[in-house]
């Protein structure tokens, strides 16, 4: 039975250790790309030669002829290893430098944006759970708007739409971080809200009885218990952000996708090597994170989470460390020097400033657009509540009894 017996399904999978499985996926990827790429390579070499000679040569490669295929695949794997190690472009820079720079920037953007998004998401989540409508509605509007419009369009709108901002505040780096933070803040807000709502309400009530203030409750009761619930979706979102950061290549940031694509265009005879290596790097970083999310989820499910440390402080330290790591990755890409360090730090500062500015202004704008009509509607409805039997939601008066459901025939 295909569907009713999940226990028997992974029986053969159990025997292979998971590390080996990821490795197998990468090897299979390289071999499959090798098959395609070697064919392209052979064909391209011949066509390039023919074009140089001014000839029209029709290259016929037989896919099913091992004598043609295996040498091509071997050649391809050799070329891939060469690209990874010693091959250089026409200016003498090894190809591996481009890939390393790309990975560095990708990681830098993720590690900087995720903590910021979490902090902003926490603020939005608290706003959307507050008893005041003028806080709740703007937060909801922000979240719904940013979850329902494309990330790419948001990025382009921020980067090339806000041209009235001075160019020391808005450039590719800050615009990229601001886009990722704004979009992911909306998603993290939903995650955090779900995490907080999963808590027993008795916890906050007990804290109130004990006389803890709002911030004390949050810091000592709510957040420490919400974090274990929150961890798996946040790690998942980190993987998503890791992949989504590829769109930053469209605003001139030279991260992994941009480097891969540029190399492909510049040196077309090695197209498939570059694609295979770029894809493999993404896989090598995202599959372990996916496994980590699953392990964390299982461990938190199986045992009670009884930490011996102050969870909130630890979480803050981890977030701060992540930002510092991101900054350091960016620094490694730019080159280790004091000038670069200070410059990157100032870029980071302006990125945070831009994020805060944009979130505040977008919340205000969207909040005004939605809050004023909602308030007006409420006032209008309230005027009608004096009609007999006209109880209305949200005004405190009891709702009228629903018409009894017709009994089934």
């Amino acid at each position, binding site marked *: *039975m*295909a*569907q*009713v*017996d*999940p226990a*028997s*399904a992974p029986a053969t999978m159990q025997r292979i250790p998971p590390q080996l499985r990821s490795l197998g*996926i990468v090897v299979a*990827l390289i071999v499959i790309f090798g098959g*395609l790429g070697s*064919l*392209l390579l052979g*064909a*391209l070499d011949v*066509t390039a030669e023919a074009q140089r000679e001014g000839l029209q040569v*029709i*290259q016929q*490669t037989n896919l099913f002829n091992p004598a043609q295929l295996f040498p091509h695949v071997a050649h391809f794997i050799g070329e891939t290893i060469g690209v990874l190690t010693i091959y250089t472009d026409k200016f003498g820079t090894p190809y591996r430098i481009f890939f390393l720079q790309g990975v560095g920037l990708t990681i830098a953007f993720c590690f900087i944006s995720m903590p910021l998004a979490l902090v902003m998401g926490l603020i939005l989540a608290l706003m959307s759970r507050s008893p005041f409508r003028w806080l709740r509605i703007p937060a909801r509007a922000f979240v*719904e*708007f940013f979850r*329902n*419009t*494309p*990330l*790419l*369009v*948001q990025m*382009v*709108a921020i980067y*090339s*739409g*806000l*041209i*009235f901002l001075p160019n020391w505040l808005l450039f590719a780096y800050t615009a990229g971080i601001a886009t990722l933070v704004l979009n992911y803040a909306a998603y993290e807000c939903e995650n955090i809200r779900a995490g907080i709502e999963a808590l027993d309400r008795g916890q906050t009530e007990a804290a109130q009885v004990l006389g803890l203030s709002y911030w004390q409750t949050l810091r000592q009761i709510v957040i420490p218990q919400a974090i274990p619930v929150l961890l798996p979706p946040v790690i998942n979102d980190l993987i998503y952000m890791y*992949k*989504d*950061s*590829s*769109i930053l*290549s*469209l605003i001139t940031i030279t991260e992994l*996708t941009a480097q*891969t*694509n540029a190399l*492909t*265009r510049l040196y077309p005879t090695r*197209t*498939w090597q570059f*694609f295979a290596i*770029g*894809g493999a790097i*993404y*896989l090598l970083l*995202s*599959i372990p994170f*996916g496994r980590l999310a699953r392990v964390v989820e299982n461990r938190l499910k199986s045992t009670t989470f009884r930490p011996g440390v102050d969870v909130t402080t630890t979480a803050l330290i981890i977030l701060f460390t992540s930002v510092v790591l991101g900054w350091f990755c960016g620094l490694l890409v730019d080159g280790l020097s004091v000038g670069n360090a200070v410059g990157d730090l100032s870029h980071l500062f302006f990125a945070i400033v831009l994020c805060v500015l944009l979130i505040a202004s977008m919340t205000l704008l969207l909040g005004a657009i939605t809050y004023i009509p909602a308030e007006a509607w409420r006032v209008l409805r309230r005027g009608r509540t004096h009609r007999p039997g006209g109880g209305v939601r949200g005004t405190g008066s009891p709702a009228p009894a629903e018409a009894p*459901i*017709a009994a*089934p025939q």
Partner: protein
Amino acid sequence: MNGVLQALLTAVPALLAGVEVTVAAAALGIVLAMCLAIPAGLGRISRSGIIRSVSTFYVEVVRGTPLLLQLYIWFYGVNILLGILFHFNIDQTIYNMLTVFNSNTIFPKQGISSFFFGVIGLSVNYGAYLAEVIRAGVLAVDKGQGEAAATLGMSRWQTMRLIVLPQALRIMVPPLTNNFITLVQDTAFLQVLGVADLSLVALTGAQVTSSASIRWGFFGAELVIYFIICYSIALIARRFETNNSLGIAPRRSIMGGALSLARRPRAG
């Protein structure tokens, strides 16, 4: 303000054409992605090791790499490879097919290869995500259901078709619609291949001017259109979710199950 309105009004036909392309890409993408996702999702829980590892490979590789890189691979890699190996030109092929039907005048001037490979890349990408949804949905159905069906003497295929899938479909509705919403959003990625969808039309409209207000007019209009499309899908999905808990009348087939989801349940 006047200038913004004027610029937007002159661009309305282009924007509408862009919306058409976006909706077409999204609809095609959803259909093709589901066609890929059902075999891949069921393959991931199949008994056969080969089928399982092939579909796991597909799902893991596609979910582990970004859509943008995949689109580049499809358009600048596979497209050119097919041309070199088999002299396959999708533009020429479709033009010839249209010629057979005496209607090649409808062939777009800028070619169709970017749209074709863009939609293929999009649906291959989302096929993997939807496969995970389908797998989770099928596994979430109570095991006893399948066992009961086996006791009644149903074959595996019958159990799947009549017992498990109709129940799994109800579990799958919320995550599926979430994925459809992100698919509609991700059609914006096709602009990197030069498909004149809504985002590219608005971007070109915005970038010919240096006036910040006209730029914001275009970006605002674009964002609002995307928001309307995606939020309406979300609202429809939310209605399905509330109906989901009410229970549906038993039907004979998956199609019947899907239809009864679309219908309002009777009271009582």
